[in-house]
């Protein structure tokens, strides 16, 4: 079990309210990702759930039980930190055993759980090393091992992959997702990387300045962003925003169209411009198009290799059905 419910939770540091009243429910077994730009309060929110920060007001409940005043260790949650936070003078084995030792588990039980965790995380050969002798990815796995053996109600991940290099990050992302599929334990994952959010989450919580902008599944957020912020934040490359006359045609203040929803055509295109930068990736080609008169730059994604280069004329056709419309208040027009 591990249903987590926040009810009108606020947090202030001195006079500054970083989290205005906020309600959120994370269902048992769900993989929830808090995503937002840095400083949006996502880590603070995670720390409030963990109990490392006290709420200024409101309640945190786990499985329906109010734990607002309960100490962090009694909440039954495990956390994986960005800097791994391994105990540097202990071996991997002792690091993983530490929470069990604190809980006073028997030696046999400890050994069993360490063996199981090491097995599933490929750490068996490293159990007698110290954290300083491990690579970043291995350290992260030890931190996850330390979290697993406690058999927590929920895992909390605080930007766990941001200290790893790109290749490792993709690998660990898969491992964590698979771990979730296997264990079916609630996981809350904080990241500023929308790709991580899109690929891992059951439910994404988009935050800005402590306010929840939208909650939903990755595809919901992609297909129907509630407002300009979410529309711009989710999806890579970013959605193109067009204001003025073109938007007025759709009777909106701003329209948005994703790069993958603009087609490059030989002739008869609705929009015309010149290629500023062409990024040829083989599978796709990204064009940054100038001089369309719509926005400073339009980003366009064409499937496969399209042989246009800097300075070439390009003609574009937006797919009308994929245009997102936003009103004066930056909210979506359905």
């Amino acid at each position, binding site marked *: 079990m591990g249903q987590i419910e926040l009810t009108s939770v606020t947090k202030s540091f001195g006079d500054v309210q970083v989290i205005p009243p906020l309600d959120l429910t994370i269902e048992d077994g769900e993989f929830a990702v808090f995503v937002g730009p840095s400083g949006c309060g996502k880590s603070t929110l995670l720390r409030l759930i963990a109990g*490392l920060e006290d709420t200024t007001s409101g309640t945190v409940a786990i499985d329906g039980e109010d734990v607002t005043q309960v100490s962090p*260790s009694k909440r039954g949650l495990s956390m994986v*930190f*960005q800097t791994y*936070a391994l105990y540097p003078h*202990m071996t991997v084995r002792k690091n993983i055993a*530490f929470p069990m030792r*604190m809980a006073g588990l028997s030696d046999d039980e400890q050994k069993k759980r360490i063996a199981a965790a090491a097995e599933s995380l490929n750490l068996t050969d490293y159990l007698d090393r110290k954290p300083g002798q491990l690579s970043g990815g291995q350290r992260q796995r030890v931190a996850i091992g330390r979290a697993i053996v406690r058999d927590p109600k929920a895992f909390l991940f605080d930007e766990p992959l941001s200290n790893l290099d790109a290749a490792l990050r993709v690998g660990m992302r898969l491992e964590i997702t698979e771990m979730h599929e296997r264990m079916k334990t609630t996981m809350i994952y904080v990241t500023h990387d929308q790709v991580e959010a899109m690929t891992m989450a059951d439910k994404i919580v988009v935050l800005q300045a402590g306010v929840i902008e939208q909650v939903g599944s990755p595809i919901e957020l992609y297909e129907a962003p509630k407002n300009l912020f979410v529309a711009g934040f989710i999806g890579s490359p970013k959605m193109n925003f067009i204001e003025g006359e073109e938007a007025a045609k759709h009777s909106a203040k701003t329209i948005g169209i994703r790069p993958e929803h603009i087609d490059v055509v030989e002739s008869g295109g609705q929009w015309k411009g010149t290629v500023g930068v062409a990024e040829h990736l083989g599978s796709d080609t990204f064009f940054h198009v100038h001089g369309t008169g719509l926005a400073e730059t339009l980003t366009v994604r064409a499937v496969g290799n399209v042989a246009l280069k800097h300075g070439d004329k390009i003609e574009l056709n937006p797919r009308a059905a994929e245009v997102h419309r936003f009103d004066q208040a930056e909210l979506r027009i359905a």
Partner: protein
Amino acid sequence: MSDRRLPRLLQTPAVILLLIWMLIPLGMTLYFSFIRYVLNSLRRPEWTSPSLSNWRGFGNYEFVLNNKDFFFAIQNSLLIVCSILFATVILGVAIAVLINKAFAGRGIVRVLLISPFFVMPAVNAVLWINMILDPVLGLQGIAVAGINEFIDGMRAAPVVGGFFSLWPELEPISFRATQTSAWAVIIMVTWQWTPFAVLIFMTSLQSEDQQQKEAAILDGAGAWSQFRFLILPHLGRPIAIVVMIQAIFHLSLYAEIEIVSRGNGNKNLPYLIGEFANNNIGAASATGIFAVILANIVAIFLLRMIGKTLME
């Protein structure tokens, strides 16, 4: 090859200077320890200037080994050094952990804590032996007299009087006495050097990883477990440094011993050397060589014990 020669050539002056710095005093001490050499002798004026014709072989060493104070001085040197190390490390860790948390007036408390370290050793000794430890005029004497007076007064009181009449009259301790003067030195040097330990431990605690601490909290570690499994191992290296530096300094304590009891019942090796050096340079040099040997033994011990921590 020539590109290696130049850096070596440039290093030589420094190396030569260091060698001269060490080897000449050591060589002279060795030389003096094997000859008869005194500062003043009416009977044998030829001994007053160092010369190979006054060769005494191991005579000075024999003389020193047969001196009744020699082994006592070695034992006392070790007692003083070890006691001070023990007390300063424990007090230092305790105080550093205590003031690591933010509280109002922490800045002032820190400055006050560090201040004993800036007191000159001789002043420190005079202050303690006369104003604090003195059995009559010092704080100790006043406190003991006060307690005795209080107990005296309570003996007449109803109900509890019987209880207090069982109490013996307290005797103030004279710290200039043979048996206690070493403890006076230990107390005053501990007072002076605890700030040093606090300072080093405090800076080390500031570099502690906060996320590690939070991880430990989530792992269910209480205050004691955090201290035992996180803070203490984190302080391993600074403790090693404090022990090493203090051992070097306290093996050569002199001013405090001189002021507390003029070496009466409380000599260490440097003090014994000083006593010999009043006239008998040969014996003083031989003791000096023994002191070098003792310091090396201590150093080897420390390096064995501490080297591991430092290398990790």
